[in-house]
């Protein structure tokens, strides 16, 4: 968000309204907007006090005396019931002229009266006020250029609880433990939906019911289906017992409006469906592949947490798991910034730590497991991409820590601390362990960037040191013989040794088509001095 947009929000938004996440984040970072916000706060408070004058107690009494003496006008007769008599179009020219003359005279008289005379005590014609439905300003936040509604206070409670469960889920090693956590999450969604049905606000009700259904179908039932045969019975027993409890509690007030009763029925239906399927884990519909949402797709923070849980618990491919989880972590970032900046959010430090654990165990742990198995070059390349993507979240948190208010700092520190644990462990795969990236004809990266460490003509590899997230990471590329030969023999490449450079390769990866280097200006100066003593 830019200052111009932020200032527009500040000038038109009420202080007690829920503010957009991006606005809160911007104000934290921008001293100019912070000043404007502080000034507006002082001015509003000042004006409030300035006009808050004590009333004259006699004035109201005098009014009521006048009211006692004043009769009311009669209620209007329904216009539709007594239509005005229809005019007959029998006007001739003389009458039309007289009409306009009279109207003009009245206008002049009215003007003179208004200008020079005392204004008569004429009651205003009764205003016919159209119905005004009172509403609060719709609060929105900007996430990836998409406008989405900010969650209500009640929904924030659900967010906090789902985050906590997710932090537990990512650390659970046993399927029974994972199942229990997923059931806890589902139950929280169900209870939250019932609260929304009874008390509102109901904006997020269909979403919450959908999350409940999704947690049961793609979380709980998938967990049962994926369990080893020996453990499955225990999981089925546990799931059935918990689901049956949920059915009994779900019965609520019978006198609900139709639309709310439908939502409550949808909850119960989802529970019954899960109970029916818990004994049939072979159903092909149960397993669903973790899906990364499209870049432009806006997702509510609670939905992102549910998707994260389903992916962490159900996805067996560690690369896909890390990839999808990294995406949801990025999508959760604005919501986390909003919550950690708010004074009213309890246990902010715990929330920060839980968020860090999501990154540590949901993203870095799967990457670490991949690195330990000596992956094939394409897999390694993919893991490195995810590693880098997750590193952006870490870098963003470090940036936020610098500008965060004092109260939010412990939460960010804990989030960073937990994330770094995962980062340190999983970065080993980028240190040249395992096989080199294979650059075959037409395959492999088109750009190589970093400092040349070694060109091994015998093995056909190029080792470079790349700077990733502020750390030096060693990467080895296996390149076609022509490229290696060119690099070994090229005086230009030799001159680049030890300095930052970027090579752009041809489509077939056999030729270097562009070399960009970052020269040390002081070295250039020295060279110039030698040439021109």
């Amino acid at each position: 968000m830019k200052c111009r947009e932020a200032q527009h929000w500040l000038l038109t938004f009420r202080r007690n309204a829920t503010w957009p996440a991006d606005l809160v984040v911007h104000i934290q970072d921008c001293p100019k907007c912070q000043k404007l916000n502080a000034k507006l706060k002082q001015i509003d408070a000042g004006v409030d006090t300035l006009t808050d004058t004590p009333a004259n107690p006699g004035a109201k009494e005098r009014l009521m005396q006048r009211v006692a003496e004043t009769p009311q006008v009669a209620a209007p007769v329904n216009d539709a019931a007594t239509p005005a008599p229809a005019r007959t179009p029998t006007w001739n020219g003389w009458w039309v002229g007289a009409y306009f003359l009279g109207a003009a005279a009245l206008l002049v008289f009215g003007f003179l009266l208004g200008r020079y005379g005392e204004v008569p005590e004429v009651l205003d014609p009764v205003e016919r006020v159209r119905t005004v439905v009172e509403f609060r300003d719709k609060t929105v936040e900007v996430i990836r250029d998409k406008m989405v509604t900010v969650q209500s206070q009640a929904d924030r409670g659900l967010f906090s609880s789902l985050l906590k469960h997710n932090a537990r889920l990512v650390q659970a090693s046993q399927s029974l433990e994972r199942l229990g956590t997923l059931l806890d999450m589902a139950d929280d969604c169900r209870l939250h939906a019932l609260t929304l049905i009874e008390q509102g606000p109901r904006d997020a009700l269909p979403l919450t019911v959908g999350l409940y259904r999704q947690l049961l179908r793609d979380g709980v039932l998938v967990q049962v289906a994926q369990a080893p045969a020996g453990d499955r019975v225990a999981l089925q027993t546990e799931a059935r017992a918990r689901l049956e409890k949920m059915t009994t509690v779900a019965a609520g007030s019978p006198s609900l409006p139709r639309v709310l009763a439908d939502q409550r029925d949808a909850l119960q239906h989802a529970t019954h469906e899960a109970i029916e399927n818990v004994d049939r884990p072979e159903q092909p519909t149960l397993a669903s592949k973790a899906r990364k949402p499209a870049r432009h797709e806006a997702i509510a923070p609670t939905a992102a947490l549910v998707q994260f849980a389903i992916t962490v618990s159900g996805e067996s491919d560690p690369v896909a798991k890390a990839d999808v989880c990294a995406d949801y972590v990025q999508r959760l970032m604005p919501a986390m910034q909003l919550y950690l900046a708010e004074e009213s959010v309890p246990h902010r430090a715990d929330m920060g730590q839980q968020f860090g654990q999501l990154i540590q165990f949901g993203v870095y742990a799967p990457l670490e497991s991949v690195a330990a198995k000596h992956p094939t070059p394409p897999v390694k390349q993919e893991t490195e991409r995810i590693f880098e993507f997750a590193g952006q979240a870490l870098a963003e948190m470090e940036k936020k820590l610098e500008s965060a208010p004092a109260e939010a700092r412990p939460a960010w520190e804990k989030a960073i601390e937990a994330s770094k644990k995962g980062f340190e462990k999983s970065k080993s795969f980028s240190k040249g362990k395992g096989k080199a990236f294979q650059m075959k004809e037409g395959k492999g990266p088109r750009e190589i960037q970093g400092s040349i460490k070694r060109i091994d003509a015998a093995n056909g590899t190029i080792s470079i040191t790349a700077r990733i997230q502020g750390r030096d990471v060693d990467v080895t590329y296996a390149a076609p013989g022509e490229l290696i030969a060119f690099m070994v023999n090229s005086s230009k490449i030799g001159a680049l040794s030890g300095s930052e450079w970027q090579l752009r390769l041809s489509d077939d990866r056999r030729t270097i088509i562009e070399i960009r280097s970052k020269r040390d200006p002081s070295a250039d100066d020295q060279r110039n001095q030698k040439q021109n003593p």
Partner: protein
Amino acid sequence: MRAPDESTWVRQAAQGDRDAFARLVDLYWDKVRRWLFGLTGKQHLAEDAAQEAFLRAWTNLPTLREAATFRVWLFKIAKHCWSDARRRSNAHPNVALPEELPGSGTGPLSEIIGEEAHEQLELALAILPSKYRAAYLLWTQEELPYAEIAEILGITEETARWRVCKARQNLVQAMTPYLQAM
């Protein structure tokens, strides 16, 4: 926030129940008077206009079609009374607030923004164009939604939002040298 029984009182008052109307007066007297005081800058003018507004409301209440619109309807009448008062006294709208305001001197306001700033805020509010001031005071004091402000002032919702925005901008501009820790 509206009283839960407001619509009931409005319907009863429309049928001539003076007690019900007295409850509505209790509910809205301070709000209307305060808004009018912000507009006129004079205590006695504000009270006269408020009395006039309530009396007109009482007289014409049987013609109010929807009880739920009472607040907007009342503020609209108050606005007309203010316009009439301006015409009668031929007073310029940009009247400076009197110095002997009850809020002047040391007190909560002075604690918030300081003595000098307090005086400047009175001045800044007084020289604010009346159309901006009317919208801003409804927004900040009465916390009315933009839709209702628009209805009361006979403008569009977007214009109401713009006027509040401009009023606050002008006040910030006028007050910047006087606010603390700026």
